[in-house]
C-alpha cells in the first residue's frame, strides 16, 4: 500500500464511527420522515397524498406566520448575539483582568439554567406591573407600561431579548476557547507597529477566529430556525400566533392538535431547506478557505 492510499484509508477510519452512528440515528429517521411528508391523516390513519402537503404549506397562513416570525428572529437576533459574544470574549480574554472565572461563569449561567424556571422569572420581570416596566416608568423612559407578553410586537421583542440573554454566554465559550489558539506574539508585533486595540481586533482577532465565527453563525442559525423552548415557555406562541415559530408549529401539529405526523414532517423539511439555504449563504459570505 502506498503512503497516500494508506493515509486516505486512515482518514476514513477516523470518520467511520461517527458517520455510521449518524447514519443510523439521524439519516434513517430522516428518511422515514421524508416518506411521511408525502402522507397525511390523523395519527396512524395515513394515506399517500403525493405533494399535497407541500402544496398546503404555501397556502397555510399559520405556517407563513411562523415562517415570518422565525426569519425575523434570525435576522435580528443572530447578528446581535454574535457581536455581543465576540466583544465579551475578547474582554474576558484579557490577561490583566481579575475575577475572569467569575465573570465567565456568571455570563455562561443563563444557558445552563432550566427553562422552566427562567421562563417563570422572565414573565415576572416583564409582566405589565413587573420590575422592568417599573424601572422604565420610574426613570421616565416610559410614560405607560409596555405589554411585553400580550402585545404582538413587544412579545416578539421579548423573545429576542430572551434568546440573546440565554445564548450569548454559550457562544462566548467557543470564542474563548478559540482565542487561546491565537499566538500572543502576533498582537505584540502589531502593537509595535502602532496598532490600537480596535485595529488589532479587526485586523487580527476577527480573521483568526473566522472558522469559529462561521461555526457559531451556522449553529445559531440552526438554533434559531429550530427555536422552540423559549417561545413555548414564555409566550406559548401568542398572543394569537404573534411569536409562533416553525418548530412550535411542528410540535402543535404532532401533539397539541389531532396529530398529523405527515404534515408535521413536511413542515420539518421546510426548516431543512431554510437552514441549507442560510448555511450556504454564510459559507459563501465568510468563505471557507483552508489556509
Amino acid at each position: 500500500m502506498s503512503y497516500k492510499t494508506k493515509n486516505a484509508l486512515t482518514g476514513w477510519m477516523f470518520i467511520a464511527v461517527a458517520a455510521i452512528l449518524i447514519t443510523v440515528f439521524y439519516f434513517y429517521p430522516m428518511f422515514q420522515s421524508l416518506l411521511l411528508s408525502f402522507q397525511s391523516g390523523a395519527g396512524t390513519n395515513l394515506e399517500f397524498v403525493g405533494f399535497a402537503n407541500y402544496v398546503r404549506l404555501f397556502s397555510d397562513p399559520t405556517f407563513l406566520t411562523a415562517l415570518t416570525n422565525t426569519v425575523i428572529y434570525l435576522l435580528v437576533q443572530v447578528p446581535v448575539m454574535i457581536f455581543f459574544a465576540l466583544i465579551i470574549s475578547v474582554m474576558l480574554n484579557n490577561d490583566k483582568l481579575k475575577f475572569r472565572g467569575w465573570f465567565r461563569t456568571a455570563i455562561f449561567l443563563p444557558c445552563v439554567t432550566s427553562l422552566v424556571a427562567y421562563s417563570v422569572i422572565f414573565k415576572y420581570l416583564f409582566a405589565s406591573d413587573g420590575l422592568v416596566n417599573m424601572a422604565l416608568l420610574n426613570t421616565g423612559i416610559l410614560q405607560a407600561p409596555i405589554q411585553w407578553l400580550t402585545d404582538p410586537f413587544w412579545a416578539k421583542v421579548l423573545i429576542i431579548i430572551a434568546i440573546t440573554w440565554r445564548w450569548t454566554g454559550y457562544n462566548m465559550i467557543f470564542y474563548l476557547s478559540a482565542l487561546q489558539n491565537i499566538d500572543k506574539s502576533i498582537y505584540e508585533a502589531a502593537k509595535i507597529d502602532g496598532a490600537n486595540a480596535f485595529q488589532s481586533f479587526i485586523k487580527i482577532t476577527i480573521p483568526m477566529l473566522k472558522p469559529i465565527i462561521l461555526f457559531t453563525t451556522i449553529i445559531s442559525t440552526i438554533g434559531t430556525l429550530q427555536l422552540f423552548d423559549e417561545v413555548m415557555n414564555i409566550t406559548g406562541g401568542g398572543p394569537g400566533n404573534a411569536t409562533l415559530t416553525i418548530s412550535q408549529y411542528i410540535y402543535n401539529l404532532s401533539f397539541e392538535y389531532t396529530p398529523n405526523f405527515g404534515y408535521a414532517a413536511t413542515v420539518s423539511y421546510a426548516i431543512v431547506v431554510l437552514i441549507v439555504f442560510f448555511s450556504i449563504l454564510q459559507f459563501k459570505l465568510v468563505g471557507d478557505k483552508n489556509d
Partner: protein
Amino acid sequence: MTKLKMGAMYTALTIISLVSIFPFIWMIVSATNRSVDVTRGRIFPGTHIFENLQNLLNQVNLVPALMNSAIIAVGTTVLALFIGSLAGYGFEVYRSKKKDIVFTILLLSMMIPFAALMVPLFRMFASISSVIPFIGIDTLPAVMLPTVATAFLIFFFRQSTKMFPREMIEAGRMDGLSEFGIFLRIYAPTMKTTYAAAAIITFMASWNNYLWPLVVLQSPGNQTIPLLISNLGSSYSPDYGVIMLAIVIATIPTAVIFFFMQKHFVAGMMGSIK
C-alpha cells in the same frame, strides 16, 4: 491598557454579569419562599428553604434522578468527545474532495428538528428492545446513543483543527508515531481548550436534554432531572418554591463543571507545547 479603559471594562462586565445572573439569584431566593409568595414575584429571601427541601425529598426521588442524569451526561460527554474529535480531525487533516462531500452530508443531520425524528427513532428502539434489551426502550443507553455522534461536535472540532499547526503532525510522523498515536498523543493534549469547551457544551446539552428522554424513558427509577422537574409542575396547584429549589439543585452541577473547565481557557495551545 490605560486605567480608564480597564475601569470601563470592569463596569461593562459587571453590568453584563449582573443582568445574566439576576434571574438565577431570584431563583435561589424563590427557593426559600412559599409557593404563594413565589407566584406573587416576591424578591426577598424567605425562611422556607428547609420546608421546601423536605417537601421536595418527600415528593420525588431526587437522588436517583441526579444519578441517572450524571451517568447519562458523563457517558455521553466522554463518548461524544472521542467520536466527534476523531471525526473532526479526520475530516480536516486527511481532507479530500470525497470527505468534504461526506462532511456536508453529515451536516445535514443537524438541520432537521428533533420532533420530526422522534417517532421513527422510537420505533427503531422499540425494535431493538426485543433483540438487545439493555439498549432498548426505557434504558439509559437508549437515551445516550442518538447523541454520542453529532454533526455539531464534528463541525466544531473540524473548525478548531483548522487552527492546529500541521508541522506538529509532521513532527509526530518523524518520531515514528502511528496516525492514531499522533491524534492521541499530540493533537488531543494540544487542543485541550477545544476539548474543554466541547465538554461543557455536551455535558450541558445532555444534562438538560428533555424531549428524547421523556419519550424513551418510562419507569420512575430511570427518571432524569429535567423529567423530574417537569413532573413537579404537573399539578393544577404546583408548589413553585419546591420547583425553584429543584431547579437550583439541577443547575449547580453544570455551573460547577463550567467553573472548573473554564480555567483551561487560560493556558492556550501555544503555552502547552513550550
